[in-house]
């Protein structure tokens, strides 16, 4: 995504913040238009299939926000996508095109499940933080590999991270088919994690767990890091203009390494959260393309933490809303995919169009 050229209104507070700027530039409006347009197309298709669009709409909204349970689900679906989006954006802001959040998430899940299933239960409440940190470390190390390969061998990070996604996915498959599968198991999954390692539920009667809070807090921390720390400003400078940054003495290699460490750690924690808060075990295929979803979320959110939160929330709502569509109106699951694909297409197209118009 090319940075748009903008100007703050005079009189804005000193702490200018690109996120707020992009949003005031009508980005929120774009999101709304895209959502409305895809909803319209989706409802048209539904009408063609013989379903009343209004009923479908109300079922979807109900399914996403209509009850405590619905809101809980929406947030649970939001969480992994937000984590991978944050992982993608911190790396991309440093100029490192990390498409590898999926693989880092997979490794993070492995990192979390090992202590959560193997350490003695007597560790009690320590088990949870240990598992989260272990997930972060696994993700970070996995994320470090493409950075090292780039700096050491000049290997293109797009291909390396893409390949490492597949390696990560098959590695998890290998683990749950073999080494991590408890004897006598009926499924390809690890043993259940210790109770103490589970992320606490936040709202009774819902699936909402502490992971959602971790994700939002991570977004806030990242925002602080990007806009209020010297590290963040160096990272952005290095991403936007590596040659200028280098001449002013900014250590490019170290910045890339640390941004990928952070990126991998965030994705890793995202994977850990899925294990510790949702599945309670490592299951093959536990991620339904969270990595790619997250990348779309990051880019659609303008590579801003706040934007990522908003777009991820919206993806979460789409997920819970279309499940309601299926279960209440028995609409084929294909419709759910159409309804998640369309807004991405519309959003990106409108954004592109704005880019062209802005330059005419």
């Amino acid at each position: 995504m090319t940075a748009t050229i903008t100007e703050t209104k005079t009189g804005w507070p000193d702490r200018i913040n690109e996120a707020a700027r992009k949003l005031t530039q009508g980005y929120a409006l774009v999101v709304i238009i895209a959502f409305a347009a895809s909803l319209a197309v989706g409802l048209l298709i539904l009408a063609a299939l013989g379903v009343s669009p209004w009923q479908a709409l109300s079922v979807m909204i109900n399914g996403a926000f209509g009850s405590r349970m619905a809101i809980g689900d929406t947030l649970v679906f939001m969480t992994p996508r937000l984590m991978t989006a944050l992982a993608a954006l911190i790396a991309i802001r440093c100029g490192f095109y990390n498409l590898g959040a999926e693989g880092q998430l997979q490794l993070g899940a492995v990192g979390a499940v090992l202590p959560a299933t193997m350490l003695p239960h007597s560790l009690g409440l320590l088990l949870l933080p240990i598992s989260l940190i272990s997930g972060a470390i696994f993700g970070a190390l996995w994320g470090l590999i493409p950075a090292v390969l780039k700096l050491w061998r000049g290997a293109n990070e797009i291909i390396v991270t893409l390949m490492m996604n597949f390696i990560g996915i098959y590695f998890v498959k290998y683990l749950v088919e073999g080494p991590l599968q408890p004897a006598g198991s009926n499924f390809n999954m690890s043993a259940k994690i210790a109770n103490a390692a589970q992320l606490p539920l936040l709202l009774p009667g819902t699936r909402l767990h502490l992971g959602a809070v971790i994700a939002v807090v991570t977004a806030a921390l990242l925002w602080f890091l990007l806009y209020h720390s010297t590290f963040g400003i160096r990272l952005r400078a290095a991403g936007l203009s590596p040659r200028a940054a280098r001449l002013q003495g900014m250590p490019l290699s170290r910045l890339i390494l640390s941004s990928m460490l952070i990126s991998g750690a965030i994705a890793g924690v995202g994977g850990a959260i899925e294990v510790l808060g949702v599945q309670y075990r490592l299951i093959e295929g536990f991620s339904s393309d969270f990595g790619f979803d997250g990348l779309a979320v990051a880019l659609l959110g303008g590579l801003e933490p706040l934007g990522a939160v908003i777009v991820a929330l919206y993806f979460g709502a789409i997920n819970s809303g279309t499940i309601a569509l299926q279960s209440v109106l028995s609409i084929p699951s294909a419709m759910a995919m159409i309804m998640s694909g369309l807004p991405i297409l519309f959003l990106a197209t409108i954004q592109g169009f704005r880019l062209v118009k802005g330059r005419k």
Partner: protein
Amino acid sequence: MSFDPITISLLLAAAVRLSAPMLLASLGELISERAGVLNIGLEGLMLFGAFGSVLGLQESNVPMIGLLSGALWGLGAAAILALAVALLRADQIVIGIGFNILALGATSLLRQEVLNPSYNAPSLRAISIYRIPVLDHWPIIGRAFFMQSPVFYGAVLLAVVLGLMLKYTRLGLIIRAVGEGAGAADAAGVSVTALRFGAMAFTGLCAGLGGGYLTIVASGGVFVDNMTGGRGYLAVAVVIFSRWRPLWILAASILFGCADALQYQGQAIGLSIPPPLLLMSPFVLALVAWVLMGKGKTGPGEIGLPFLRGQK
């Protein structure tokens, strides 16, 4: 277990057969990428092609028309994608991701609405195998390279033609220019928009044909949801791995096919490596090779960037 000549010959033949859809899609993707468009939507394009070819086959009962229909569906789907990317400058990666999700849903819905579940395809042997006389009896490679679908021979020819085209023709020069310096091409009077649109349309045609090969040649005319199963993403990887050179794409596709084939040819001859590790092997192999090859060209300079005239 043993690696006797017959096993190797079977393995190679299977590798080549399994690589053909990827080869076709990769060659298509190559042209987009050379023109500066990273077309992540390849997976979706293949899926549309796969669906379209079965529809064509069902309506005509002629395998060739099925393949053609697949290519045209790929082309049509690519035109929509190109509208967003080349004309409206949508972000290439985001659009690709969204398109793939949409394609998965759309082809499934279409299948349920228009494909006849109990349709019985006619014999597809004519386009599944064409033995090239004499050569097909060569030991080891005869079966692999000279007992294939005519579509595969076509794909090999296409790789050669594309290689020559990119290197020696004006069209090739222009495609490369648009990918390496769109501003310069524009100033030289080339329509970057039209060229990228055309390149993406060609990608759609090839990916659609790849999808058609997958259903008609390799799956006997049956479409199932998500039948491409990641081949499109792999094809993108193949292009980058081959460093944007057509003949390397040919080699790399077969290499990926080999790892694929080894997975079960290995099982059949009693090689006991856990399947996930075998599935993983082409990626590890590609990664190691990529890293060993070291610093090289990192791809068309403007890949992934929208073209905006008058940008500093």
